[in-house]
């Protein structure tokens, strides 16, 4: 039987505010445990939450960026459940009245066509703290009670109260590939509009995936499983692939999928059941009486919209149109604000957008990828790369030499100065026709046997002569010129 895959994502993105959503404590990552948790984050008796206006601004920015309805009134609700890293015994979230309503983003499919993915809602909420178990990462917190043999768990509340925007998609995604494209799209967007650093290692961007299968052509959704807390695009892809296989096998064997929450184990590359629907908490949501409804002035909402930068999709279309770039090139250049800015600076200095795009998406992208760093941390600045490309453009150096120069720049040679590297390495291309003809004639004279063979029809020997010329010029001859001149000199007589 043919199955249709149906996926929806819930993405929790940490908002880049300097303080927490309901307290003045700092949100910086990596501080020693419990040093960034104030009385409010600890849920001490008598404390009260006060909403961080910056978090609201971030949510509205996102709403505007996905063309969503921004709620004039939104309401914070309490989601009640007991857990040691949830200090108040409830999480302040939004339930019936989220701040951001229905919106959409577009993803580019492999064949280059666009697909619109609906976003059901996005709401503000606070993050919980972290439970740290004795055999876990932070030995400093674990207390090993040798006398009793008891094992302990520690709690770090630094993260408690960190503002999150939970972005819920419609079940519009039809493959793991689309799910990843959508997740990347949201990741790009939240960073682009500056509401999140999107740092996945630090947990600033976490994904839950709802996935179900149904017979192709069916209109009713199948029973879904929810895979929680996926923190990389690669794991998202693999978790969904595993889950699709699991559900398909189950269904084809005549079984049923149970509605449940599953965890993805990246080491074993499998999903495991965490809790079934029956075990699920009854969260007893109700409006938080400590917080007033969030009333948004239309003037404020419009002002936030006016502050938005040109969005990546619009920029991508403009680049394709203005510079005749391919969709693939335009997509990678608009991956982030920093990439786009890098591109812009280069184009301003060099003019040739295609050349710039080629370099950014090949040599630079490969080097960044290998070093696992962002373009903003690139050791070769746009200005430096422009100096190199200028020499490629005026044919001072060959494409091969240019790659060599780039590597030297990356390594910091000559302070990354392209001119000085070219000079130091003697990579200046020989384009002087008279000089080249002299070298070519010497090569012809020294290899009369090969010349005779070539002239009698052994065309393949042409490469041999090119090689000889290059050898004589230590690779600095302008290859196009060498080709043309060689052909001319070999033909005469």
């Amino acid at each position, binding site marked *: 039987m043919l199955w249709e895959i149906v996926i929806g994502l819930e993405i929790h993105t940490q908002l880049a505010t300097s303080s927490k959503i309901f307290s003045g404590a700092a949100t910086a990552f990596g501080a020693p445990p419990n040093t960034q948790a104030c009385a409010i984050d600890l849920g*001490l*008796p*008598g404390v*009260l939450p006060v909403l961080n206006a910056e978090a609201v601004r971030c949510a509205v920015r996102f709403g505007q960026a996905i063309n969503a309805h921004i709620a004039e009134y939104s309401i914070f609700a309490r989601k*009640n459940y007991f857990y040691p890293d949830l*200090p108040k015994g409830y999480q302040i979230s939004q339930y019936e009245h989220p701040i951001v309503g229905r919106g959409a983003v577009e993803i580019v499919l492999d064949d280059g066509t666009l697909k619109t993915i609906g976003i059901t809602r996005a709401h503000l909420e606070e993050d919980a703290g972290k439970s740290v178990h004795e055999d876990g990462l932070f030995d400093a917190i674990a207390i090993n009670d040798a006398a009793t043999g008891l094992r302990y768990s520690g709690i770090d509340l630094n993260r408690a109260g960190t503002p999150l925007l939970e972005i819920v998609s419609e079940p519009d995604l039809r493959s793991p590939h689309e799910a990843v494209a959508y997740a990347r799209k949201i990741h790009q967007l939240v960073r682009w509009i500056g509401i999140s650093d999107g740092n996945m290692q630090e947990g600033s961007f976490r994904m839950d995936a709802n996935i179900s299968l149904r017979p192709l052509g069916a209109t009713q959704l199948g029973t879904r499983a929810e895979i929680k807390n996926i923190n990389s695009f690669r794991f998202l892809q693999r978790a969904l692939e595993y889950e699709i296989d699991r559900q398909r096998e189950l269904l084809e064997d005549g079984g049923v999928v149970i509605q449940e929450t599953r965890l993805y184990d990246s080491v074993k590359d499998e999903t495991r059941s965490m809790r079934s629907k029956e075990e699920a908490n009854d969260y*007893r*949501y109700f409006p938080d009486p400590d917080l*007033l409804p969030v009333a948004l002035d239309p003037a404020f909402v419009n002002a936030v919209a006016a502050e938005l930068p040109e969005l990546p999709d619009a920029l991508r279309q403009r680049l394709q149109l203005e510079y005749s770039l391919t969709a693939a090139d335009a997509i990678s250049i608009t991956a982030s604000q920093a990439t786009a800015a890098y591109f812009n600076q280069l184009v301003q200095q060099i003019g040739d957008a295609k050349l710039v795009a080629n370099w950014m998406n090949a040599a630079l992208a490969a080097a960044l990828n290998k070093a696992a760093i962002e373009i903003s941390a690139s050791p070769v600045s746009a200005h430096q790369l422009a100096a190199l490309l200028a020499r490629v453009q005026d044919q001072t150096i060959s494409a091969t030499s240019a790659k060599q120069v780039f590597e030297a720049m990356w390594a910091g040679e000559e302070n990354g100065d392209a001119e000085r590297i070219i000079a130091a390495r003697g990579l200046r291309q020989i384009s002087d026709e008279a000089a080249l003809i002299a070298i070519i004639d010497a090569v012809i004279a020294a290899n009369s046997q090969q010349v005779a063979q070539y002239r009698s029809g052994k065309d393949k020997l042409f490469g041999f002569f090119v090689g000889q010329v290059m050898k004589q010029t230590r690779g600095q001859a302008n290859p196009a010129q060498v080709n043309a001149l060689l052909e001319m000199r070999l033909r005469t007589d």
Partner: protein
Amino acid sequence: MLDLTIAELSAGLRQRHFSSRELTQTLLDRIARYDAQLNSFITVTPELALAQADAADALLTQGDCHLLTGIPIAHKDIFCTAGIRTSCGSKMLDNFIAPYDATVVSQLAAAGVVLLGKTNMDEFAMGSSNENSYYGAVKNPWDKTRVPGGSSGGSAAAVAAQFCIAATGTDTGGSIRQPAAFCGITGIKPTYGRCSRWGMIAFASSLDQAGVLSRSAADAAVLLNTMAGFDARDSTSANVAVPDYSATLNNDLHGVTIGLPREYFGAGLDNHIAVSIQQAIKLYESLGARVRDISLPNSALSVPAYYVIAPAECSSNLARYDGVRFGHRCTAPRDLNDLYCRSRAEAFGAEVKRRIMIGTYVLSAGYYDAYYLKAQQIRRLIRDDFQRAFEDVDVILGPTAPTTAFLLGDQCDDPVAMYLNDIYTISTNLAGLPGLSLPVAPVNGLPVGLQLVANDFQEARLLNLAHRLQQITDWHRAAPLI
């Protein structure tokens, strides 16, 4: 000295007729000598009180002081006080010392009050008799076989017994006004949002409000002026200017219309109390006020609506007491669930558990619409009733409680009967309105409270009406013999 008003005491302090230390020591001596009979304090802080009194005396000699400088008061043990235990009447918080002051506490401290200690209360402010305290029941100073009312029973008893000049309290469904009525003193619950809730341990957040228990409306005006005002740390506090309540105490009552809701004078009200209230109404007429009958048709729904909303909020508010970070923790828990269950089972009293269970139930999936949502709709109807009434009248008058103070243990077995003590006070909290209770003619030697309710932020009107009656009567001057 004990019978003086705050204004008179302040004048005495400034003129050095007596020092704050002398005043404070007198009250501390009374507490030490008599409070064993009443149990009105959970914590007494004599060293701190005397140190604060000395500091006040130093300020008083320099002049330019607040009216409250050197005046000894007590705080209900629901207000967090940095460095002093705040138990909320519960075993759960028997070991809890907050690292911060409640806003109400810091504002009064800034005015220079002397803190004598923290008063007894029903656990987490849940109760109408002060019998639900982990620290034992409080006795009514007028009759030690009777309850002082609750939940601010310790504050009411301490003020009535002249252990302190005034005390703070909180009122979620009548917890200031009903004990004020039972103990023969004046108690005001301001408009919701008038006083900050920061540092005030939550029972039902949408209903809780801080207020004052004192021996006169004039004293209450001074304290409320210091406590009230906007606080950025409480999102629900009102950004509304605080008038000078003392300035309008003597306003003339001609042209004031008092509404008498017929629902407050029907079956269930003690006949003798009705007579006391009628007598006070006549006095108001003699002062120039006009009286007319009104109706608050949804009054009967206030108790059921309240006992859905308040428990719902409390079930969530009290979830933080889990034995993990502070408060009582059971010994040697087997696992996480055991830690939760035993810590909470051991440290919460029966009434608190009852309300957590009710609240959890009414918020549960499938019951939310039938209970919580319905109760919120009733709440709106009740507020609409009052708003309609205030189109015709300035103030609403009635009894504070249907009976005088009842015997200790009398209503312990019947929670519903206990809940009905607040039948006249609860609707005010649901509507968010200010209410005041003042003593009128006693019945069989026991105090009777008259309740005045006004529209939002009209505390000045309540204090004005109460003060005018207290100018021509002596009921508020009566003090029990301890």
